[in-house]
């Protein structure tokens, strides 16, 4: 990253900092209160607080995504872009910058969320339920057993490896969804510029709906593939049992890998198209 891109990024970091600080403070307070409630044996309250923590974190991740997409919208569709695109960085530098920050903030929030669950788990008495993964404690123990060399239990190792692959697949899907929004805005900008359409929000809506339908179609196709070949990931029963004691990792790695491949490839294609439009066909 050159010096100017770094400066641009530091500007953007400042903008998101307030939102991030509020969200991180909310997670931290909730997790500590949650842990305190558990330590006082008020498990009903603790469970409620955990549900709130999970909801707040989901909301936080969505808000961060919307905030970052809005930043990009501001550059492309408002007068702010006239100043931003005159900065001495390549036009696609703004895309790179936005994308990198979005991935960084979203990733950070997910890590903080896991850490907060960890805090409440460590201080509290009960295991934090993590759906198909089992519990946070289970996951940490599995990691200790299989990576720290205490035991070499095969099912635990498979569960851990499958968890990593699944987390990677979910991360790639998240990135793909984010890029889809950015792609919608960039393509809409191109359409508005080329055909001199002033109703930019209408164009964004139509392009966004088209993208949504393409996403639905791809998801549907992937589901069919997953079910047809009985691969375990999101949509088959096998997918939900993959982390259990009998999880068949060797077979089930295929499901998440197909998702990583398809969503990863389409994300790269969309990113390249956006970069090309910004560098060679910008019209603001």
């Amino acid at each position, binding site marked *: 990253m050159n010096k*100017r891109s770094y*400066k*641009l990024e*530091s*500007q953007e970091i400042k903008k998101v900092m307030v939102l991030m600080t509020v969200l991180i403070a909310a997670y931290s307070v909730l997790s500590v209160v949650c842990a305190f409630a558990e330590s006082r044996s008020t498990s009903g309250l603790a469970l409620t607080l955990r549900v709130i923590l999970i909801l707040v974190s989901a909301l936080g991740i969505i808000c961060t995504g919307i905030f970052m997409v809005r930043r990009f919208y*501001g550059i492309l569709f408002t*007068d*702010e*872009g*006239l*100043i931003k*695109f*005159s*900065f*001495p*960085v*390549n*036009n696609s*530098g703004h895309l790179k910058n936005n994308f990198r920050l979005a991935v960084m903030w979203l990733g950070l929030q997910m890590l903080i969320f896991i850490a907060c669950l960890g805090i409440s788990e460590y201080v509290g008495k009960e295991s934090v339920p993590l759906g198909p993964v089992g519990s946070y404690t289970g996951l940490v123990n599995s990691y200790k057993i299989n990576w720290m060399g205490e035991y070499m239990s095969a099912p635990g190792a498979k569960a851990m490896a499958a968890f990593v692959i699944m987390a990677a697949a979910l991360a790639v899907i998240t990135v793909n969804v984010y890029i889809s929004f950015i792609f919608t805005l960039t393509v809409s900008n191109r359409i508005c*510029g*080329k*055909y*001199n*359409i002033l109703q930019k929000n209408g164009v964004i809506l139509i392009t966004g709906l088209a993208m949504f339908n393409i996403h639905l179609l791809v998801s549907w196709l992937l589901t069919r593939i997953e079910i047809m070949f009985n691969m375990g990931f999101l949509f088959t029963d096998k997918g939900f049992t993959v982390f259990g004691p009998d999880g068949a990792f060797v077979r089930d790695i295929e499901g998440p890998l197909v998702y990583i491949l398809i969503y990863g490839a389409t994300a790269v294609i969309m990113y390249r198209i956006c970069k090309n439009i910004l*560098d*060679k*066909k*910008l*019209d*603001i």
Partner: protein
Amino acid sequence: MSKLLECKGLSHAYGKKRALDDISFSVESGKIVGLFGPNGSGKTTLIKMIAGMIHDENGAVSICGNPVGEKSKSVVSYSPDRMAFAAGRKVSDLLDMYELMYEDFDRKSAEDKLRDFGIEISDYVGKLSKGNAEKLQVILTMSRKAKLFLLDEPFNGLDPVARENVIRIMIGCVPEDSSLIISTHQIGDIEQMLDEAIFIKDGGIVFHRSVDEIRSETGKSLSETYMEEYR
């Protein structure tokens, strides 16, 4: 004198309407150039192309020998035809932003000029009057030691006294080896400071000549020539 800006075969269309049609011209360093034409003649599109806001795949813009991009933008200071700063931003934030992004930005000079115009650094852009907001944009643009200054309609919303002050800033801020391209309808106000004038109409250049030449050949002021040309 060396060519600071060179535009070759620039064209651009908005849908079916051609905004620019195969425009070519060059500007040498140290010149103050007026860009004139009626509304919709392509002035803003041309300035945006030079500033890198609009791309033309066929034509070429070269600034100090560099195509439009990171290098060219580091020597171009551009003020758009409308307020481009968000209302919720403080003047001090903008100063920070310009200082961070442009190595040639003279913060002290900008602060002095803002003080002269009665603009507080702690003010929010949204709280400024239309005229003061316009002055702020011009001051930030002109407080750089850029090679090429691009001002698109810098007198929007300014009263005659403020216009005179902005002109004073413009003249005082342009380094000797830098050039300034200014697009405005207030020809009479800036006529005395201009070296060259470019008249454009329907996306094409009508003429690009030195102002002294125009005056001596026609025996008329630039404003009168403009009225004659476009009436």
